[in-house]
């Protein structure tokens, strides 16, 4: 079997991979509005635990695959103004909606009617972006456009050092969360 798969096979595998993704989101509890919003209020650290574990585990494996010639990186361009403004909006939207695009979609399947209302909002947001796309490209995305940079190139620290650092930080934070700071889950 030659990897990566392309064409029809790859397209239909998307359903399987998406299902694993959606299944894991629900089992992780992040299809629940309260869990996500309480992360931003530091009352529930489920989101942080899931994301940091995924980054460290995923990072080590994808780096190994890349170095073995089994995978390619897919780096998004560092358009500093666009990504900063976009992320700032995203944080506000995520608190009001209570979901991000992926968890919102998965939450609709759990019966969350307000997630469905917000999904309609996301489609409208997509329309608004498409309408303003040319303007944003011309006036925002070109400012601070540094290209497809990675942290190792920016800092001079090699990949493995970054991953070791992230793993170390995650281990200390998780240990503190599990032993010293019992999260308040009262409001879930």
């Amino acid at each position, binding site marked *: 079997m030659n990897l*990566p798969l*392309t064409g029809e096979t790859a397209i239909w*595998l*998307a*359903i399987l991979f998406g*299902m*694993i*993704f*959606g*299944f*894991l*989101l*629900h*089992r*992780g509890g992040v299809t*629940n509005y*309260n869990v996500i919003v309480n992360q*931003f209020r*530091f009352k529930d650290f489920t989101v942080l635990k899931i*994301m*940091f574990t995924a*980054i*460290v*585990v995923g*990072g080590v*494996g*994808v780096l190994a695959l890349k170095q073995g010639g089994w995978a390619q*990186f*897919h780096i*998004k361009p560092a*358009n500093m103004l666009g990504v900063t403004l*976009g*992320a*700032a909006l995203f*944080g506000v*939207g*995520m608190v009001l909606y209570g*979901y*991000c*695009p992926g968890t919102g979609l*998965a939450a609709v*399947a759990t*019966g969350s*009617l*307000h997630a469905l*209302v917000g999904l309609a*909002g*996301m*489609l*409208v*947001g*997509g*329309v608004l*972006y*498409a309408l303003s796309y040319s303007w*944003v490209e011309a006036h925002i995305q070109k400012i601070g456009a540094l290209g497809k*940079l*990675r942290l190792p190139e920016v800092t001079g620290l090699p990949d493995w050092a970054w*991953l070791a650092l992230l793993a170390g930080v995650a281990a200390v934070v998780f240990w503190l969360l599990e032993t010293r700071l019992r999260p308040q889950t009262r409001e*879930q």
Partner: protein
Amino acid sequence: MLPMNEPSPTSQTGNPCSPPEAAEKRARWSPYVVGAGLGVLSWVVFAVVNQPLGISTALSSASSVCALPVMGAEAVAKNAYWTKHALKLDYGMLFLAGTFLGSLASVLASRSFRLEKSPAVWRDRFGASTAGRWAAAFAGGVIVMYGARMAVGCTSGHGISGSLQLALSSWVFFLTMFASGVVAAWLVFRRPGRGAH
């Protein structure tokens, strides 16, 4: 029969939660197991189909369907964004379908399906009004998607997939999004709730 959560002022403090709500909590796996699962899923997806994880690109292509009746087919076809990200039954679109179906499978297997008009944390702060919650969810959805497109990625594409590749843009996204969310959550929830008394 579908269980429905009936918002009542006292429902959140001390009362036992509804059977599907309890089932949802029982069905949860350790967040470390779920995170590791997402990490391993990334290995497989990168190696097998040479794709990163992502949601918002496909969702923004899907939005062109909503624009069709308002803008007309010609205007949609001419739009620079939808020319670049045209709606088609591609990998990204089927990944969206899979995400929905996978969550549904987990919900059904754990018997935790529950129609929720407004979540507990929101009701504790703003009371039982469904209209208020839906207005906020809609506005939040608009903002979250606009932000995701401007940043060229969301919590999946940047937060997990980009961060694990140590992309500069993704770490800027992750840290800025989190800081912005913390400030927003403080502004929205800092005052004592109406539902809590």
